[in-house]
């Protein structure tokens, strides 16, 4: 029998209660990311979700080239490094020879939306049963803040010093919407790390994307809008405001497609979907999402 050290406190406060614990999948070390960077948040969400789903022990993950190249230093799962942009192809190879593994890719926007467009499009088109985490901060962070395909119009970067000019440099690319049109894509959603509420919603998206793979669905993708205070030339706080304002205006948040898990394995087929191009107008395919556990309702943060 031990003496209560604070007998005057209410019982609720006295009982030790675990409210947050770092998931074991998250390595016990500090990251190389710049102050205020969103990668750490996405890493933590992934570790939380994958631990909750008991995935780390049979995960094979693919690291990108870019700021998250060292993801394997922070996430305690088997990792292979892919050449720039090739993570979805590498993941395809893993998936095909290891049907039992949980296969994860983690890519930035330079990696996924520029140099790796062919690989991501075709992995999605084949309906590869892999989960892709796409961190979009609209810039090449690691190489010093150059323009990415996702850079906003007018945004100044080290390779668009006068701001991105559509006439010379084209328009921002909404690749998640593009991918969502492919029938091989079971789930595609866009979240943000801009505040606690959005982070909670992003976590639910990541969980849904992981569940799609576990349940035998096709390709699942979560785009996480993130900030790059250093590359954007802002304070971390300013960058989060920017993320909530102009960035979200260009890249709207939400579930873009959820076709639900239909087949036990292989590419998901859309129930009742018409053959041929799903959308002539380029709008999001009007799939009837089959509600899946934890997917329909995004919890409030």
């Amino acid at each position, binding site marked *: 029998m031990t003496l209560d050290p604070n007998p005057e406190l209410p019982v609720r406060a006295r009982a030790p209660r675990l409210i947050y614990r770092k998931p074991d999948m998250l390595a016990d070390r500090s990251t190389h990311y710049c102050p205020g960077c969103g990668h750490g948040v996405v890493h933590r969400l992934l570790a939380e979700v994958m631990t909750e789903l008991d995935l*780390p*022990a*049979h*995960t*094979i993950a*693919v*690291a990108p080239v870019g700021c998250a*190249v060292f993801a*394997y230093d922070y996430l*305690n*799962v*088997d*990792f*292979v*490094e*892919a*050449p720039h942009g*090739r993570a979805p*192809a*590498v*993941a*395809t*190879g*893993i*998936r*095909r*020879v*290891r049907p039992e*593994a*949980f296969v994860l890719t983690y890519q930035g926007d330079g990696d996924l939306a520029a140099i790796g467009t*062919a*690989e991501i*499009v*075709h992995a999605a088109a084949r309906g590869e049963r892999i989960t892709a985490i796409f961190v979009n901060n609209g810039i090449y962070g690691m190489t010093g803040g150059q323009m990415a395909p996702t850079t906003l119009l007018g945004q100044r970067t080290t390779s668009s010093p006068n701001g991105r000019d559509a006439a010379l440099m084209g328009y921002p690319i909404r690749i998640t919407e593009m991918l969502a049109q492919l029938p091989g894509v079971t789930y595609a959603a866009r979240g943000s790390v801009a505040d606690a509420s959005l982070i909670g919603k992003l976590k639910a998206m990541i969980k849904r994307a992981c569940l799609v793979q576990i349940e035998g669905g096709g390709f699942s993708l979560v785009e996480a809008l993130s900030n790059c205070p250093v590359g954007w030339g802002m304070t971390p706080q300013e960058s989060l405001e920017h993320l909530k304002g102009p960035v979200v205006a260009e890249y709207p948040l939400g579930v873009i497609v959820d076709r639900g898990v239909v087949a036990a394995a292989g590419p998901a087929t859309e129930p009742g979907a018409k053959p041929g191009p799903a959308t002539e107008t380029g709008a999001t395919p009007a799939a009837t999402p089959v509600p899946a556990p934890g997917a329909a309702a995004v919890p409030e943060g």
Partner: protein
Amino acid sequence: MTDPLGTGTGPRSPEADTKRRSRVLMKGNEAIAEAAIQAGCDAYFGYPITPQAELLEWMARRMPDLDRVFVQAESELGAINMALGAAATGARVLVSSSSPGISLMAEAMSYMAGSGTPMVLVNVMRAGPGLGSIGPSQSDYFQATKGHGHGDYRVPVLAPASIGEAMDLMADAFELAERYRTPVMVVLDGILGQAMEPVELRFRNPERHAFDWALTGAAGRPARVIKSIDLVPEVLEKRNIALQRKYAEISRQEVRWATERMDDAEYVLVAYGTAARVARSAIEKARARGIKAGLFRPITLWPFPSRELARVARHAHAILTVELSSGQMVEDVRLAVEGRCPVGFHGRMGGLVPTPDEVVGALKALHGKVERTRERDREQQQKRHAGRSEVQSGHHHAAVALPAERTDRAEIGARTGDGAREGAPAGTRDGARR
């Protein structure tokens, strides 16, 4: 067509076994594909390109029937990176392409060499540069042996001269790849890919080993990482030193070559692949005209059989290198020969193959030049050392025979030139240092 050759991996009837040993006419690309399957290839990734498309097509038919992996990728980049992923889990992986496709694969080859990921890559070479043509070529010798991608790395390169030998080398290639944790290339020119030859259905499935590096999920062990990056210069240098040690080991252990008609040869043709087949015919024609010619055929283009060739050069009057290129391997020949004897070159480009008569012509020209030089040397020597009657050239004639130790070496590629050498000389001797 579940088992087109009766070569399934399941239990076999004696009839099937008989069938299995019989000779069948097979196209090079298809024979290679089947040999890879029989060597236990778990997964194949490819992309259509002439002149290797039949390899992909054979895999498309066979692999799913065997419950193995076949993926036609969106590009050669896709194919090789799928291979990287599959190989990182410890699977036995094959990729094939032809020259322009291999250029695209160079990036991942560098990553795989750097991270120690085993894989076999077949290049059915076509003429370049650029899109070039679909005709046969050996103009990717530099690419194959001097590095495809960036960085200090090498990959073993195997160059069969017949379809039968190519089949044997597929199993060897997987074995090398896994033993040394490295990509391995098998290079053929378009003729060997496209031609049909009678081949023996004799296969080998190399033993499987448990890999302590393969990615299988970190259950019950610390997580593993397969990577080539290291931003700390000292650490990266250490990794590079380890790689170079591996290459030195491969250079010591895995050199392969073959010789033919070398016992009394004064003129040595150095050639690989289809060029070696042409050289073989040229040797007969040359001998009919009184030029004692023999063949030195590198089977590993890297590691190049430099020491063995140097030994040959010590006693040869001259060497003629024959290639389906502007002269690429000839640089390694010259490096190996180090001026011990004159080295000539004859090659064709653009998808053309030198004819035996062309090679004999080049050999005769070289022969004439060498004889004139030797004659001049003899005269000068006689003038200088009027009192000494022994001439240097006598030595050459006496010592052409190869060192006896070669015959002790294990014979490999016993089917060298299998069924393809119509009227080919007997007595092919293959050497391998183990």
